[in-house]
């Protein structure tokens, strides 16, 4: 149970970073932390007590293994996270190019 709480704390750390930080790069790091917390949660959901990695091998039979489905899901989620992060960083670099700053309070051409 405590692992789930640690996972939740990680999620909240990410959200805090997202909401309170003013630097664009730190906000992106916050997004990444939130995503990792969710991925970690998925892995925890799939865990079975004393389970082994779900890999078949010659001359071995796996009796007690963790849920392989969530691991596949997490791989997909990681790939999606990679795409989002790369896009965000590219946009942040272009913003720096235009505004000359990473500070979100100074990037305020849009209002109203």
């Amino acid at each position, binding site marked *: 149970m405590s692992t789930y709480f640690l996972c939740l704390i990680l999620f909240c750390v990410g959200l805090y970073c997202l909401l309170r930080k003013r630097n664009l790069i730190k906000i992106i790091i916050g997004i990444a932390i939130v995503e990792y917390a969710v991925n970690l949660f998925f892995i925890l959901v799939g865990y079975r007590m004393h389970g082994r*990695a779900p*890999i*078949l*091998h*010659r001359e071995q039979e796996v009796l007690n293994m963790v849920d392989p489905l969530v691991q596949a899901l997490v*791989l997909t989620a990681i*790939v999606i996270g990679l795409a989002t992060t*790369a896009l965000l*960083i*590219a946009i942040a*670099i*272009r913003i*720096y*190019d235009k505004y000359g700053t990473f500070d979100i309070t100074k990037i305020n051409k849009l209002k109203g």
Partner: protein
Amino acid sequence: MSKMKQDQAGMTLIVKTITRLTVGLILLYGIYIVLHGHLTPGGGFPGGVIIALSFIHLMLAFGKETALKKLDQIRASLFESAGAIMFLSIASLGFVGGYFFLNFIGKGRPFNLFSAGTIPLCNIAICLKVGAGLFLIFVTLVVLSKMEER
């Protein structure tokens, strides 16, 4: 003069020498991971990432030009699209058996290199897509940040 400049790009001699030794091995390891994706942990995505890393390694050690000479942006983007089209056509070829994404080739015996039907082919397609894509992301970010220094 241009040769002098070429030598100065990138990192020190030690790094360059080590890179020259290891970069081929990294590439080979990536290919191994891809081809054995259906037997051992790994597959198209991790293998593709390792292959992309070998090029990124080259770029870090020798500078941008050397790496781009091996694989320039246009060719990388062609590889990327080709990988995606290959994956989609493997999936669509499943229609010969009646279903999208059907594994229509004979499965073979488990734990053999030539087994698991379309999975190794899919792994190769994903590897092309991911490897070229990740390399392109890296190159694009480098080019973007170079642009802003000017």
